[in-house]
Structures are given as structure tokens and as C-alpha cells.
């Protein structure tokens, strides 16, 4: 057990590539937490996908012991948080588990979009924030300009920002000292009943489910019987440990401490991020505020390219779901795509991450259908149905009206891009709720249909603001609107996986764009192919893919026979990446790309 006054808990807030992981590595290295021989670059990002994309999906933590200049040894707990709007809830829980943040800004780049979204999360959690200027060793570094920007844009004092170079190690001792002197110690009552927050959990092949907690009050020990207040489940603590970042057993964790436990929990699904953990007997009365159950908001179909892989896909999805409570799935049948699963995600990045993991870790080729939200169908007989898939839309004569989820979106943007942002929101059926200025940055609040945001809104926002906008949203509820199902017909055959729900007033424009995109996405065939968008039986847009006119190898002599034969074999294999609809082959990427609204 460590004295509260000798604990500091913190997170690092930074934009991609601004050096968050490198700084974390340096802190770990300088304090001798990890033996030199075990160091490998970027210790904390565990998944390949995380390393590649430079994003953090799962929270990670490391406990560092630091002998400070005052002669005392402090325990520093670093929680590395996810950094994407899809995981905003997970971030908010991680932020509530610590008292301060290091705000790392690249001194050659300045403050960028992602920094803002996360730094506001830190401010919301009442963090003390220590600004750190990284890459100060580069000739292009402009520390004074960047300090000014931090003060202007974020509104925090940057006069004592610490100049560092995570790469060379310059300034790292100062950062460690600042964590001790400038960040507050946690508060908590050792004598009170146990109250700990479940920060994250994951599946370990050897240990089963590992739960990361922050103790607020009381003490947790190995062997304790604990209760998860949201699920009501009771478990016995098998193992209690801290992460350095390898697991090191510990007898107990007291207030302010961060650690992990195992308790013979079978599935990650049995744990809820944000849940409150207390003792089975003499537990605390009230759980910690702010808990929200994971709620998938984006749905799409995942189908194996090769129908024979369906069972392999089922296995993979079941295994993945054990480790990702926020991901839901149920079996789906598509006339066009065969057997697959309708899956629910926290957002589009989450969708992409899950799909990538299924493809890579389980070696599957998948077709992903257009993402959709959950519509509420109010039937004429009074029944209310959830519609997860536009293909399941019943005949309109039975439907009284349709409601769709709305969000409250907050966008921070430099005023030079404001016009483009307003136009984007307006184009997506947004209703402006607020517009204020802070310096030269505007804050816009829009009421938007979630359906207009789940697809490529974030990409578009990044592109029209060159990455200088931050975006966050909350789901506010459901509202009725004039929504219709639009079908796409390729060569006169409806392709169910391409049907979407769309606002009546936007249907024609949307249908036109989709037909134009499909015209480019579907390769020419040996005959011409009509592509139509229709509402019910009425065609509202049409394009024609011209017949192929030329595809022949110019030179083919004696030395080319073998190569040409292999090329044809390869091309035939490439056809497997296509889906056959009647006589037409549609490439897999068409199912997503056709929906994009750019251009």
C-alpha cells in the first residue's frame, strides 16, 4: 500500500505522431521500470493495428516508481487512453481514473484536432494539465508560437511548458519531477467501504479476463469477494497485481492506486467499463456516477467472400466478441451475399478495427455492407420495431411513421474553415443549435441525424478543415422524419446489400451520386449494365456502365506463354474478390465506397 501523498496518476494527451508513445517509453526507461533488454519501441500499443494506425484502442497502464528530488519515492501510474471519438466513453472513464494529464504538443506542428478533443476530456475530468513541448531538438521547432497557441486555443497557462525531446531523452527528468510537483495527489478514504472503478478489461490467453481498476476508497486484497454493482455479479479475487508493464503481484491496493485483478471471469462481456466494484459484504451504497452501458450505434453486415468460410467467420466473431463487450452480432441472410452477420459497433473506426482484426487475425476475406443506424418503425398496429438493416424494411402500407436517432454534435474549428463546416452540417440535414467564438476558433453545436454522421462525416470534416477540427457527439434521442428505403438495381436486379434508408427530400440527389459511383466502381463487363436507384417501384436515378471494348494482350509469343498463363490464373483468382449478382461481378469495396458522399 502506498501513501496517497506519494501517488500521482496521469494520462498523456497528444495528437498522432506528436510523440505520446515515445515519451511513455522514455519515462519507463529512465525510471528503470523495464530492463533495458526488454525495451522495444512503443511498449504500450499492443495490437498491430494500434501500432500501424498510431491509435490506441484499449487503455493501457504502467506503474512507475520514481525517486524524486525531495528524497521520497513516488508511485506514478500512467494510463494510456484511447484517442478516438468512437471510444469517447472509454476515454472519459480513463480520464476519471487519474488526476492530471501531460499535454504533449509537437513544437514543430502545434496543436491539432485530436489533441483538442482529448484535452477537453481532461479538462472535463478536472485534471491538472502540464504542457510539454516535444521535438524541441528539431530546427523547425517554434516553442514560443506553440505556447501562445496552447494558451489561445485551449485556454490553459503554457508559460511553464516543459521543452523536451522524447527521441533524445532531453527534458525527461524535468517531466518526471513536474508530475510529482505539479500534479495533485489522489484523494480517498482508506477506512471507507471499497469503491473502485472498472477502467478497462481484456482477455489474456493464460489468465482469462483481466480487469483494470482504480481504487477510490477502501482497500482491495487478494481473496476478497467482490461485487460488480451494475451487473450484480460476485467474484473472488484470484490475483491482484500492478503493471510495470508486466504483471507484478501485490498484496493489496488502496485509495488512489491503479492495478489489475483476475477473478475467474469467463468473458470480457461480463465486465462493464465504468462499473463500480465493491465488496460483496459491507459494500459501498452508491456506485460511481457516469456509468453508461455500451450501446452499438452503427450496424453493418459482414459476409465471407467465400461462402464456405461462414463457419470460420462465426468462430472468429464469437472469439473476438469475448474480448470486446461493445461489439454485438447476430446472424443475417442476404439474397445477394449469402450467410453472414449483422454486427453493431461504437462507431466507424470501431467497425474498421473489428473488420481488420477478423481479416488479419483469423485470415478471412470479408465483404462489409453499408453502415446503418437503428431506425424505429412505428407500425400501424401500434407495435414499435427496431430496424437494424434497411433490407428488412417492411412494406410501407404497414408503417405509420419512422424515427431516427439524433445527435448533439460539437465541433471546434479555426474560423477560416467555419463556412465549410457549416455547409457540411447543413448538407447532412443538421440544425444549428449554437455558434460561439473563443479567440479565432469557433465552436459550433449542431443537432444532426446520426445516420448522416456514421458514414463518412468524420472523414469529410477532417478533409474540409485539413484536420484542424475536433468533433464530439452525444446521442440525444429519436425523432420522426420523412424517411424512405432506397434500393439499388444493378442490371435490373436489386442488390439488397446496397439498399439504404434516406430522407425523402435527399433521395434523388443521393441516388444519383450512388449510381455515378457504382458506374466507376463496377468494372466494365462484356455487355452494358444499367445501374438504377429506386424508391419502391419508381426509378429515381440511372446510369449505364458501357460494355467493355478492349482487353487484349498486344504481344504474346513463345517466351510469353508461361507468364501469360500465370497472369490469367491470377486474374481468375482476383475475380474471387468480386461478388456475382446474376451476370454482373461487383467488387467488394463497392459496398462501402458507393455510399461515400464526397465529390
Amino acid at each position, binding site marked *: 500500500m502506498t501513501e496517497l501523498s506519494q501517488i500521482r496518476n496521469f494520462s498523456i494527451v497528444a495528437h498522432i505522431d506528436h510523440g505520446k508513445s515515445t515519451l511513455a517509453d522514455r519515462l519507463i526507461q529512465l525510471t528503470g521500470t523495464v530492463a533495458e533488454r526488454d525495451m522495444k519501441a512503443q511498449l504500450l500499443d499492443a495490437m498491430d493495428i494500434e501500432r500501424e494506425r498510431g491509435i490506441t484502442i484499449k487503455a493501457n497502464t504502467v506503474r512507475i516508481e520514481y525517486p524524486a528530488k525531495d528524497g521520497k519515492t513516488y508511485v506514478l501510474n500512467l494510463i494510456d487512453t484511447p484517442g478516438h471519438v468512437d471510444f469517447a466513453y472509454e476515454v472519459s472513464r480513463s480520464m476519471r481514473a487519474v488526476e492530471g494529464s501531460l499535454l504533449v504538443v509537437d513544437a514543430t506542428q502545434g496543436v491539432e484536432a485530436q489533441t483538442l478533443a482529448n484535452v477537453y476530456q481532461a479538462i472535463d475530468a478536472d485534471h491538472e494539465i502540464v504542457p510539454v513541448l516535444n521535438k524541441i531538438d528539431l530546427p523547425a521547432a517554434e516553442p514560443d508560437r506553440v505556447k501562445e497557441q496552447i494558451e489561445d486555443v485551449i485556454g490553459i497557462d503554457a508559460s511553464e511548458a516543459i521543452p523536451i525531446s522524447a527521441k533524445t531523452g532531453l527534458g525527461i527528468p524535468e517531466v518526471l519531477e513536474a508530475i510529482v510537483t505539479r500534479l495533485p495527489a489522489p484523494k480517498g478514504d482508506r477506512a471507507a467501504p471499497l469503491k473502485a472503478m472498472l477502467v478497462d478489461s481484456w482477455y489474456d490467453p493464460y489468465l482469462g479476463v483481466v480487469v483494470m481498476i482504480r481504487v477510490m476508497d477502501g482497500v482491495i486484497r487478494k481473496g476478497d469477494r467482490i461485487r460488480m454493482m451494475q451487473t450484480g455479479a460476485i467474484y473472488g479475487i484470484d490475483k491482484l497485481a500492478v503493471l510495470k508493464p508486466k504483471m507484478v503481484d501485490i498484496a493489496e491496493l488502496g485509495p488512489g492506486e491503479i492495478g489489475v485483478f483476475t477473478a475467474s471471469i469467463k468473458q470480457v462481456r461480463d465486465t462493464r467499463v465504468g462499473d463500480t466494484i465493491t465488496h460483496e459484504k459491507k459494500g459501498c451504497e452508491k456506485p460511481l456516477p457516469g456509468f453508461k452501458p455500451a450501446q452499438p450505434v452503427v450496424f453493418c453486415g459482414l459476409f465471407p467472400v467465400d461462402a464456405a468460410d461462414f463457419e470460420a467467420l462465426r468462430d472468429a466473431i464469437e472469439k473476438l466478441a469475448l474480448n470486446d463487450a461493445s461489439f454485438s452480432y447476430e446472424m443475417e441472410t442476404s439474397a445477394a451475399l449469402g450467410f453472414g452477420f449483422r454486427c453493431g459497433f461504437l462507431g466507424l473506426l470501431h467497425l474498421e478495427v473489428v473488420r481488420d482484426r477478423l481479416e488479419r487475425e483469423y485470415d478471412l476475406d470479408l465483404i462489409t455492407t453499408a453502415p446503418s443506424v437503428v431506425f424505429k418503425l412505428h407500425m400501424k398496429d401500434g407495435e414499435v420495431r427496431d430496424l437494424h438493416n434497411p433490407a428488412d424494411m417492411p412494406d410501407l402500407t404497414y408503417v405509420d411513421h419512422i424515427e431516427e436517432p439524433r445527435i448533439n454534435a460539437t465541433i471546434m474549428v479555426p474560423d477560416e474553415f467555419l463556412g465549410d463546416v457549416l455547409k457540411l452540417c447543413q448538407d447532412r440535414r443538421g440544425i444549428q443549435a449554437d455558434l460561439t467564438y473563443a479567440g479565432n476558433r469557433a465552436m459550433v453545436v449542431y443537432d444532426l441525424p446520426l445516420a448522416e454522421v456514421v458514414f463518412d462525416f468524420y472523414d469529410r470534416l477532417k478533409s474540409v478543415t485539413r484536420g484542424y477540427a475536433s468533433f464530439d457527439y452525444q446521442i440525444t434521442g429519436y425523432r420522426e422524419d420523412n424517411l424512405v428505403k432506397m434500393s439499388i438495381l444493378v442490371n435490373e436486379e436489386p442488390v439488397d446489400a446496397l439498399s439504404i434508408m434516406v430522407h425523402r427530400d435527399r433521395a434523388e440527389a443521393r441516388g444519383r451520386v450512388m449510381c455515378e459511383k457504382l458506374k466507376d466502381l463496377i468494372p*466494365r463487363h*462484356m*455487355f452494358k449494365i444499367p445501374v438504377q436507384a429506386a424508391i419502391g417501384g419508381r426509378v429515381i436515378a440511372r446510369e449505364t456502365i*458501357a460494355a*467493355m*471494348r*478492349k*482487353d*487484349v*494482350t*498486344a*504481344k*504474346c*509469343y*513463345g*517466351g510469353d*506463354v*508461361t507468364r*501469360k*498463363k500465370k497472369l*490469367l490464373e491470377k*486474374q*481468375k483468382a482476383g*475475380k474471387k474478390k468480386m461478388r456475382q449478382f446474376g451476370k454482373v461481378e461487383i467488387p467488394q469495396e463497392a459496398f462501402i465506397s458507393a455510399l461515400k458522399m464526397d465529390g
Partner: protein
Amino acid sequence: MEDWQAGGFGLYLHWPFCASKCPYCDFNSHVAAAIDQNRWRRAYLAEIARVSAETGPRVLNTVFFGGGTPSLMAPELVAAVLEAVRAVWPMANDAEITLEANPGSVEAGRFRGFRDAGVNRVSLGVQALNDGDLRRLGRLHSAAEARAAFDVARKTFDRVSFDLIYARQDQTAAAWRRELRDALGMAVDHLSLYQLTIEDGTAFAARHAAGGLAGLPDEDRAADLWEITQEECAAAGLPGYEISNHARPGAESRHNLIYWRSGDWAGIGPGAQGRLTLGPARWATEAPRAPGAWLEAVEQTGSGEGPREALGRADRAVELVMMGLRLTEGVEIERLQHYGHSGINFPEIRCLEEEGLIGTGGGRLRATAAGRPLLNAILRRILA
């Protein structure tokens, strides 16, 4: 009769050197400072002896010196090779002996020597009849030089063919029609007309990937140029007998017909490939591509051949169709049926026939005029 005899038997000899490397060319060609022609002669002769020991004394219909730029070979080397060839294989009375040549003034000066060595047909790499496009294609000769070389060749050899590359950057339909008429007006009886193709690993591929080579035609413009090519050549009496080859009837390249009719050919030289039927087996042979490696293999192991592959029934059927459909005459269906149903999707052939892209009249499977420019798409459908 053995199956290969429907195509005949030829010898392909690869000379791997060029004066410079053309930016569009993905052939096995190299630029070397000094070439020891004696060393090459010994190696070719050794290979002729080795291969002929395997085939036995079958009648040889054709010899083809390809490259590279075989017109850079010393005429004495060509003569020595042909002498060795005649000593081991009985030559057909009408044997066709072709050499590929650059249409430069230096090469033209050697034409008589090649003729005296036994060459009776040359194929000139003219590529374009205007200097601007020749420069863009990285060619060293001018249009005037090419015409002069052609005239010398015409007087020296029984048969002369030349190559043009079309679908160049910014080439209009009208300009190609004019240039093609010029070419057809040059008293020529054989033309190879290739659509410019950006091949992997070439300088053009790198430029194209970097966003260069603006003005290359899209599919529709390329198809227009193809149609003009078929039209003009047919009107001039040189109908297309193969996808890119046009000839006055009787003037077709007999050597290349061996490839397209799936005959047998021996391939000698760096990177050369062959097809040899020996007893019940048909072999695909291949040689190391690097000139030095090939020479050393011949000198040290007595063989310039890499591992050979035995071709099964499906492979043989696929090659027969893939190569045979390039010819306007198509493939004899009976010959194809000989391989059973392996490798070929027969029901798809019937679909293609209904779509008007394939014909099966007269006992032959052939691509129709509409099908010929779509041959790759057709092959993807009918090769199972």
C-alpha cells in the same frame, strides 16, 4: 501424327544485347560495353548440339533470331549458328529464317552479311514514322533512317516485316490512320502493330506510376484505334491474322505461327523458353535470364537450361486455346477435344457464342471480330 506437328517445329535463339534499353520494353535485353562474340558462338553451338540430341533429326521449319537486338550480332556468328543448325536438323525446303533488326544505318550495312549467312526474312523495329514519337519512345533512329533501312532490307531479303507501336501519347485517330496508310504504302507484306502497353518493371511503368506519360488513350480511344487498324490493314490487303499481326495471305510469320498453333520449338539463349514434345510428354523449358549466368551454366554444366516443367492435359489445353484464339483461324476443336474436358469451361463457350464473341463454325473455335479485342476477358471466362 503427333499433336505438335499441327504447328511444326522451330528454333528460337535469343541474343540478349541492345545498344540502349527502350523505356517501354520488358524483354530480356541488356546493354553491355564489350561482348565476346566467340564465347557466345561456343555457347550457342553447345546448346544446339545438346537440344538436337534430345529431339533427334526432325524437320526444322523455322529459325528465329530474337532479342535484344540480334542485328548487333556479327554476321559470322549468325552464319556459324545456322551452319550448326543445318548439320543437326534437316531443314524444310521453304525454311523461314528470320532476324530481328534495328532500322539504323549501321545495321543496314550488315544486311548483306546476314543474307549470305542464310537469313531470308527480317523484322524491323521501326515503331513510328515520325521523329517526335520515336524520341518519346526512346528510339535511337530517325524516321528517315528507318525508311532507308527498310529499302535496303527490301532489296536484300525475300521477306521484310516491320513493327509499329500505336496508342501513343496524344496520338489522334486521324494521325494514326495517316501513319498507318504511309506504312501500308511502303510495299510491305507483313506488319506487326502493337498497342503501347505499360509493362511492369520498365522505365515507362515508373513514369506512369509517378503520374507521367500524360495523353495515353483510355479504353474507348484505344478501341477506336484498334478498329482503325483492322479497317486500314484489311483494305490494303493485309488482314489481321493474329491480334497484332497483319499480312498478305501467305506472308504470315511461319515461326510465330508455331507458337500460336502450339507446335514445338526449341528455345536457346538467356531467358529463352521452349516447348518440346518428347515421347508422351510435353515439356516447358526455360533458361536463366541473366546473360552471364546463362553463359556460365552452358560452360560449366554443359546445359543452359533451368528446371523443366511437364505440361499436363489441362496445361496443354489451356495453352492451345490461349495461343490459338489469338489467330483469326482459331483452334481446331478436334485437337482441343483430344485433351478431354480438362482446363476448359465448355458451357461458357456456348454462352460466348450466344453473345457473338466466339464462333465454332467449320470445326474451329475462334474469336469473332467483336471478340478479338476482348480476348483476355474471353479467356478468363473459358479457361476453367
